[in-house]
């Protein structure tokens, strides 16, 4: 047992040395070996310290069952934190662990350096533990059922946050309103007091007239608000303090997970690329080589009818390396691309891109053909391949990653007809919502807002409103 750990430690030290040589940059690592049910718990909850909810139990049960039946296996889990926690499945062989250790290092490098993660709370392990604690206290105070029912409702809309990196996130209700009113009057927001503040006044053109003086906010919110979670948490009139608290904590957790949702393909591709490169540097005997190849192929194997993000990401990264290592004559002449820049380009991509831009910028015609990608859709009872043109494949892939794959909804009006009713608008881009799901989501939204809620979307390309008034559903075409 201790021998095992000593061997593993030795291997990790070696792997880290190789990784450092390649220029990977990661946080201090904490490797923890744990049994399968613990790994699956973490997999279902997303974090070892997360709060309790039956939906996690459901996921856990499903995942664990697949493991027990030998259908799927999680070998590792890695947490975006500093220090970085990585959980290894007890019973992994040493060579399996070597692959995983290398894979995890690359994940950590990605967490640390990718721009999307720049605002990540690296103490989320502790934050989530605190959240879990608070929620369980609320359960004791207000009853498990009440808290659980509330969380059910929040989960229904939890994806609807605004994950922008450059937007001030932590405005409270009052400051938000002041800012929006000012914007509407055409004023500029007062800038934070800083050392160079006086510089701003130099280019301030105070030419605006004053007719905006008496203007009231006719529309609330003045501009459509993407962060539905935040908006409801701040402006709902029926929420109590503990409910707002839970909402804001769950929103924080969503914002923490968001970059991972946005970079799934890249992150897995990056990690797969590096575990292969690193293991190649190790001195393996033939047995280990075969075992490595087995596990590696099971990780990156393409699967029929679906896209393995590990495989897709890996192939794109390899393609980038190839194209920047050996640019064509045209690329050299037109863009001044110098040969041998493959690695450098890869590191740049891992820093600046997310899945949408990664695919948009680096998916090539050659690649879609090599990977034999296609677009398929439902025609009658059949799922049929309908398109093989590479631009459409690329655009479809990009589209599937927009907004983390969730429909984009905004708060359009929170005082509809001056009745305080809430209108969410689905920014329709050609794909309809699942209406059944939506009609069942509306009661949750109602529970949070406390008044009639509407969702505007399109069905068969016609605008339609769905309404839930606490008792009944209505729908009407506009």
């Amino acid at each position: 047992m201790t021998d095992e750990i000593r061997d593993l430690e030795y291997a990790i030290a070696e792997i880290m040395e190789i990784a450092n040589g390649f220029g990977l940059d990661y946080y201090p690592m904490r490797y923890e070996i744990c049994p399968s049910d613990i790994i699956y718990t973490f997999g279902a909850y997303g974090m070892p310290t997360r709060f309790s909810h039956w939906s996690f139990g459901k996921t856990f049960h499903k995942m664990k069952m697949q493991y027990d039946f030998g259908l799927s296996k999680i070998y590792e889990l890695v947490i975006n934190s500093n220090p970085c926690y990585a959980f290894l499945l007890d019973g992994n062989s040493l060579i399996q662990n070597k692959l995983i250790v290398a894979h995890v290092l690359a994940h950590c490098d990605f967490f640390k350096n990718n721009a999307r993660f720049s605002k990540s709370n690296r103490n989320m392990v502790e934050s989530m533990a605190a959240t879990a604690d608070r929620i369980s206290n609320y359960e004791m105070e207000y009853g498990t059922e009440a808290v659980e029912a509330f969380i059910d409702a929040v989960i229904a809309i939890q994806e609807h946050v605004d994950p922008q990196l450059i937007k001030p996130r932590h405005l409270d209700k009052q400051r938000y309103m002041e800012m929006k009113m000012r914007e509407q009057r055409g004023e500029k927001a007062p800038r934070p007091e800083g050392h160079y503040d006086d510089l701003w006044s130099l280019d301030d053109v105070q030419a605006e007239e004053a007719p905006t003086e008496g203007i009231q906010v006719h529309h609330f919110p003045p501009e459509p608000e993407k962060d539905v979670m935040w908006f409801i948490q701040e402006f709902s009139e029926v929420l109590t303090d503990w409910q707002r608290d839970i909402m804001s904590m769950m929103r924080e957790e969503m914002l923490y997970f968001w970059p991972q949702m946005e970079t799934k393909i890249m992150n897995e591709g990056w990690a797969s690329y590096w575990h292969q490169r690193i293991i190649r540097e190790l001195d393996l005997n033939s047995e280990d080589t075969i075992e490595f190849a087995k596990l590696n192929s099971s990780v990156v194997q393409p699967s029929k009818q679906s896209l393995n993000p590990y495989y897709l990401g890996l192939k794109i990264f390899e393609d980038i390396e190839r194209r920047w290592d050996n640019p064509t004559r045209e690329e050299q002449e037109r863009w001044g691309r110098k040969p041998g820049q493959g690695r450098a380009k890869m590191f740049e991509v891992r820093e600046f891109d997310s899945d949408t831009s990664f695919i948009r910028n680096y998916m090539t015609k050659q690649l879609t053909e090599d990977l034999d990608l296609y677009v398929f859709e439902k025609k009658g009872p059949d799922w049929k391949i309908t398109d093989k043109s590479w631009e459409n494949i690329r655009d479809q892939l990009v589209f599937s990653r927009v907004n983390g794959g969730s429909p984009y909804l905004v708060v359009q009006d929170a005082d509809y007809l001056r009745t305080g009713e809430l209108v969410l608008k689905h920014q329709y881009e050609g794909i309809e919502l699942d209406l059944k799901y939506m009609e069942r989501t509306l009661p949750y939204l109602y529970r949070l807002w406390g008044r009639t809620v509407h969702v505007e979307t399109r069905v068969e390309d016609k605008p339609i409103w769905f309404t839930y008034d606490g008792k009944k559903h209505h729908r009407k075409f506009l």
Partner: protein
Amino acid sequence: MSNSHQPYSFVVSKEDWSLHRKGYQDQQRHQQKVKDVIKQNLPDLITEENIIMSDGKQIIKVPIRSLDEYRFVYNYQKQKHVGQGNGDSQVGDVIGRDPSASQKPGKGEKAGDQPGHDIVEAEVSIEELEDMLFAELELPDLKQKDKDLIETHTVVFNDIRKKGMQSNIDKKRTILENLRRNATTGTPGIHHISPDDLRYKTWEDKIIPQSNAVIIAMMDTSGSMGSFEKYCARSFFFWMTRFLRRQYEKVEIVFLAHHTEAKEVTEEEFFTRGESGGTICSSVYMKALDIIDRRYPPSSYNIYPFHFSDGDNLTSDNERCVKLIGELMKRSNMFGYGEVNQYNRSSTLMSAYRHIKMDQFMYYVIKEKGEVYKALRSFFQKREGGSVR
């Protein structure tokens, strides 16, 4: 790159996770919720066709819609997806087929999700359903039968002793004892079985009063009874039989079908055969009386005549019916009349039966499938103070 003084440090640890039970706890909570949903949907579930038509042994799958985590999602069916082929995919290839053409909610959450759906299904065995259902039911006031007369002896092996007959040796326990003893003496393993290790099974004589019940299932099979009416009756008898089987050791069921005249039929015929013609209910009551008198002496049988009809009886026959029901009740534990009356017509039979004022006589009008459950509850409701078994 890194500015910490120990840039690439690492720690490997292996802790005791045995107290980390969160996943299991929440899993249990989920299962509890599933159970609650099943309970709430009991009225609909118990008339599910795949239960009623089953042999009653299988595990059935119940779609649990309310435990899906509803969110705003794209309609998976109307979305385009990207997939990957083996290198020879062509436009027009069929890569999958929807097993059911029906529209089910799908999730289009991830790139490259399998075309498929995530419908929460709970597996429930019929036994579990029974437990939930029967927890709410109880036999109505029964007349005590001459139980002493019908007794049976059985032998129950229910104890372990150190002495006994060689033929009754309990090998498993003997070996366990041996293991235990060897372990305490520091030589673990199975060896040197001594007389001290031997364990024997012993038995007890038990006298079990035998209890029998017979259901006289009567149904109107005249032209006016459609498939809905029959289905309701069938669901009712399905659960009633199973309920009585729990209460009695032996439950027999006699099927009597009638229109203007009655005859004994097989179960199969009872539920499937449709006949035309008018209705004279007294015919079936006469038949029932006849069968009871010939085959099921009330002294040793608990008798449950149940009659299902759509209430459309020959008006002149009603009076006779009421009289015969009185006769039947003298012999029976209770008499149940179920009327399947979808459209709430006024029925001739009901107008006559409404005036029967006896505790043993019960009736219920079923208007929709879900009310089979209510009928069951009404016939076998729990009464205050309990009842005599």
